[in-house]
């Protein structure tokens, strides 16, 4: 009995210490699996989320408040959306994300946190190449992050259709960002394949 309790509490301590609560995400996205083993960085991230319907959302990591401020200033300036300081602050707020076209941006940023949860966003328009709004967002981000490292990431849902992803790629290409990362779930290399051989050959050397 005592031994079992000891083990149980050891386990308890382990799980308490290792657990890391997921920040409640308004966007639920099931990412695909890949054999890539690189961990995702959390800083200086510009993230485009793609939900299962292929709708796109733009967000920036919380650590980069000043860049977020600059991005929204630039967007406001370029698209003359007429945002007030308060509405801009709504964008700078932690874990904010935008999934509306520019003409609805003002109305969206004016909402309170509770209202946003209920608000159905239509995604940043992208399918029309002449009016690829994601391109503007990315350009604003690239300008704000100028001279420092920016990690551009795409987090897509398994069921998102390819044209949405294509729209993101086009937007990136137009901004000359040719290097980006896709967030995936880890998976082991299937045995018997080339990568598996490479990985197992590398292990003893390490």
């Amino acid at each position, binding site marked *: 009995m005592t031994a079992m*309790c000891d083990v*149980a*509490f050891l*386990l*308890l301590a382990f*799980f*308490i210490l*290792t*657990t*890391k*609560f*997921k920040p409640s995400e308004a966007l639920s996205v099931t*990412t*695909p*699996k*890949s*054999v*890539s*083993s*690189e*961990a*995702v*960085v959390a800083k200086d991230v510009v993230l485009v989320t*793609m939900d299962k319907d292929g709708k796109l959302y733009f967000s920036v990591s919380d650590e980069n408040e000043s860049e977020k401020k600059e991005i929204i200033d630039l967007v406001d300036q370029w698209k003359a959306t007429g945002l007030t300081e308060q509405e801009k602050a709504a964008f700078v707020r932690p874990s904010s994300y935008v999934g509306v076209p520019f003409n609805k941006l003002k109305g969206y940023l004016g909402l309170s946190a509770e209202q946003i949860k209920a608000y159905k966003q239509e995604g940043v328009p992208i399918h029309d190449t002449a009016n690829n709004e994601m391109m503007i967002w990315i350009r604003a981000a690239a300008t704000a992050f100028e001279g420092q490292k920016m990690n551009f*990431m795409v987090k*897509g*849902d*398994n*069921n*998102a*259709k*390819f*044209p*949405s*992803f*294509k729209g993101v*790629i086009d937007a*990136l*290409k137009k901004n*000359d960002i*040719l*290097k*980006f*990362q*896709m*967030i*995936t*779930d*880890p*998976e082991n*290399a*299937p045995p018997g*394949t*080339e*990568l*598996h051989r*490479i990985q197992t050959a590398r292990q003893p050397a390490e």
Partner: protein
Amino acid sequence: MAEMDTSSGGGHKKGPGVKKSKKLSTRVDLTPMVDLGFLLITFFIFTTTMSQPTAMKLFLPKDVEEKDQNKLKASGALTIMLAKDNNVFYYEGELAPDGSNFKSANFKDIRNIIINKKKTTDSKDFMVVIKPGPLSTYKNTVDILDEMQINDVKRYAMVDISDVELKLISASGS
């Protein structure tokens, strides 16, 4: 486990006049604590996320003028097209005008096809061209890019699908 000292009456008879000192048990009931402990364990086991998400790097080719593009031997190319419902189509080399080398596959077979092609062609010329169709999903795209990593394909590119290929895909019933 709950133990209370109820042995005041009865018990072994001491001699008359000997005051019996009441012994209090020092054992505490641990059941509720253990219960709570296990409850917490289950809670943390369920909420914990052990696997951190990983990132997959992708480098996009710069759109360059036709004449600057490095010409590879067409025969060394393997073109893989992604269609809806996880269907995969592929052809080796250049697409024959009558579409005779246009073949269908699925995500299970494509690995062997890539491996075979890799074996049979000169590594200088080997290249995989990925053409995701408009009805393929993001998962398909990531899967096929992953396949490049799994099979250690050094040279691959993501290209827009052409109308001819789209027609062939729809003609094959998908």
